[in-house]
């Protein structure tokens, strides 16, 4: 009574204020653990033993996304062949709880369905980021992107992502999900080894049911053999960032900083900006304007293809 409780409480506040400064000095050069400098800003992770506040100054600083982070789905295509992994089987469209995936299955000239999507839409304004599509895709063709800055100026077409906007190369995925990629590659190599073993088997021994033990025993070798071959074929570049992310701290992978491949950016009309000078993000306005023109052009094209006039 008599205010001792309040004084005690104020003592806690004071300690925290002091703790914030002490943390700053004790953790020179940065109060955060595992800081990764990238073009997009600092990627940081809050320490668990901080005494004071640990506010993150978004957007200059951003949190490191864990590998499992999920936002909006993306479609993978093989980097070396350019072929879509998607077979238009429709499982993602069926399992999607808000039903935001729309797939048109491709047909050949005779009208027979082909295992390839002719069109693929995800309505990002409806998507609830549950990742069921990625979870139940039998071909590892749809995965969750880490890019969470998707704000647009309109719902249509900004938030309806078509196949071109959704597609990313496998190397992008490999860079975002290093351990999942390694695991999937291992399983794929195993399967291929099994297939190869099975392909060879029929000629010496027809009853192929019995020697099931043999391929299992033979597994380690083809896996080891296939391992260096597979990454060499597909993602040569992202192997480096993946390794770096691993070294930095387990599954807390950064958004790949030196990744130079294709990244999803939806087409959107932007508000007017000055023609000269440098923006707050350090990119010159002329470059931003050029990007904007490009985006507007693609937007107009899409609207034109749909038979609608665009006045912007």
């Amino acid at each position, binding site marked *: 009574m008599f205010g001792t409780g309040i004084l005690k409480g104020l003592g806690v506040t004071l300690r925290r204020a002091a703790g914030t400064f002490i943390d700053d000095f004790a953790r020179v050069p940065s109060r955060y653990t595992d800081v990764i400098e990238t073009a997009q800003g600092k990627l940081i992770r809050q320490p668990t033993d901080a005494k004071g506040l640990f506010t993150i100054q978004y957007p200059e600083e951003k949190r490191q996304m864990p590998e499992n982070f999920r936002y909006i789905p993306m479609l993978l295509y093989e980097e070396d062949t350019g072929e879509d992994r998607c077979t238009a089987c429709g499982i993602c469209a069926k399992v999607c*709880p808000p039903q935001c995936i729309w797939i048109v299955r491709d047909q050949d000239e005779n009208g027979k369905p082909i295992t390839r999507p002719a069109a693929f839409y995800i309505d990002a304004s409806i998507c609830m980021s549950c990742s069921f599509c990625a979870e139940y895709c039998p071909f590892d063709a749809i995965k969750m992107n880490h890019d969470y800055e998707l704000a647009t100026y309109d719902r249509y077409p900004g938030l309806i992502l078509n196949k071109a906007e959704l597609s990313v190369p496998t190397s992008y995925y490999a860079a975002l999900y290093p351990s999942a990629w390694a695991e999937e590659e291992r399983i794929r190599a195993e399967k291929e080894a099994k297939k190869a073993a099975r392909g060879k088997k029929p000629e010496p021994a027809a009853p192929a049911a019995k020697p099931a033990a043999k391929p299992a025993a033979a597994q380690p070798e083809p896996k080891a053999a296939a391992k260096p071959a597979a990454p060499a074929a597909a993602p040569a570049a992202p192997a480096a960032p993946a390794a770096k992310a691993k070294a930095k701290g387990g599954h807390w992978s950064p958004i790949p900083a030196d990744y130079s491949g294709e990244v999803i950016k939806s087409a959107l009309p932007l508000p007017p900006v000055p023609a000269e000078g440098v923006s707050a993000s350090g990119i010159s306005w002329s470059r931003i304007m050029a990007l904007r023109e490009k985006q507007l052009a693609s937007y107009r094209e899409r609207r034109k293809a749909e038979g609608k006039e665009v006045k912007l």
Partner: protein
Amino acid sequence: MTDAVAEQSLPFANAVPGAVLAADAAGMVVDRKKLIEFALHLRNHAGFDYLSSLTAVDYLGFEGRTAADRFEVVYHLFDTKKGGDGVVLKVRLPENDPQAPSLVRVYPGADLQEREAYDLFGITFTGHPRLRRIFLWDGFHGHPMRKDWKEAYYEEEHKPFGSRWPVGNHKWAEDRVPWGDNVSFPKGWDPATFQPAPPPLPTIHEPPWADENHIATERIIINMGPQHPSTHGVFRMIVALDGETVVGLEPECGYLHRNHEKIGERNTWLGNIPFTDRLDYLSSMSNNLGYVLAVEQLMGDKGKPPERAEYLRVIMAEMTRIANHTWAIGFLLNDLGAFFTPALYNIEERELLLDLFEAAAGSRMMCNYMRFGGVVRDVDEDWLTRARDIIFNRLERKIDEFDTYLTGNEILMARCVGVGYLSAADAIALSACGPQLRGSGVAYDLRRARPYSIYDRFKFDVISDDGCDVYARYKVRLGEIRESIKILKQALDDLPGGPIFNGKPGYVTRVEKGEAYGAVEGPKGELGFYVVSDGSDNPWRYHVRAPSYINLNTLGPMSIGYKIADAIVALGGIDIVLGETDR
């Protein structure tokens, strides 16, 4: 429900002659004419003093059902003293006369739930003092939970919709179903001449000092909200004031209503899991757990998660409890006027726990982590290291800091001690749950009373406090954080290896025909899911017993007689989340 329930309930079955028409493992079918008498007997002589869940089911077109027993009102009764399985009562109602006697006089907690069933099913509860719509507005046409009611932009009875594949060119729902084609208005309704109903007036409780010697004060009605009164969400309280004293209070909700349960019936079994995240969005892991536990009861051996998954579920659920309670305490202080400093101190710990959820489940708040028969992703050694670091080294220290910071604070005590009084008997009668109930000295915690998952393996105390006021609820929450830390330490130490999923994950869920009620002790109280399956890929009925909603029963009784500023504190003490209240 097990067979034991049916056996156990047989002694009561004959207590009121002719009351029980049929009984099986899923419950007792009661004659509606004898319902009140039978419920009184169960309450007074059999110990079932707690009406947990009350809901209705529409069996239109269900196998074996006719128009004579189309509707069914389902009551779940429990014993707060002994715990254990409860009894399930069912009243079957014909299509042309959907009337059941109101249980408000026996279990006052039936109040809001009966209004919900009236609103969504059109079942009339005779004897209910103020049977009005609660989620939908008065001019709403029809009762949306009936099977023959179709929403605007209706596409198909069940997901997945055929339009998505293999010829799914994207179209807006709005384009597909133009406005007007699929919307029905009440007969004779004209927007030009429509006059909205006058606002509902709360029941006035005459204050004891209302005699001729009392200074004449004006009786005024104040609408608090719906613009975030005290930042809890879009919620409105109609308060009758005598001077500054609350003499009547009527909660009005439904501003966030999206008919979660109808969406749940359209969805597949699996598709409902991410939707449960959106109920109480502060504790999505617990919501997941409640739902999967309910459905797993109907899945037989397929629904038994392996050991590691059970531990992970408990770890996640308890972390959720800590995250939720830090939020609740912080925002209680906001309601008191201590704007955001205590809230920020508290949610710092939540921040670290949400990071863990993000690393394990992929999302901070919409976790979508549990599956039928396991969990979706395993945690790795790095995650466990960080979790141990937070649980063993940081959290306890931080909780002690809150304790020093807040518990003895004179301002907090002046605003909370003795405010929002709710006696133990009232708390039970009004179906209060969670810290609301335990803050009134009723040590009823489902983790003890009806242990689910693997809670029977852990050593922890059920925290209760017989202060019966907001301060007691605050202390219960603080105590529960400490108990959760205890459970987490044991679970992290004992976490076994092995698989995290029973069988091979698949997107089609085989659920047997039947019904189940699965409840967990969520951070806000008993979160129950009542599901009815007809053996298909979609639930026939999916009902959520939302603790925040049912705790609103207590808001009026807690606030009347106090000053208007105390009503806000009482609301803060309940810790409601409108995503769950309005569903």
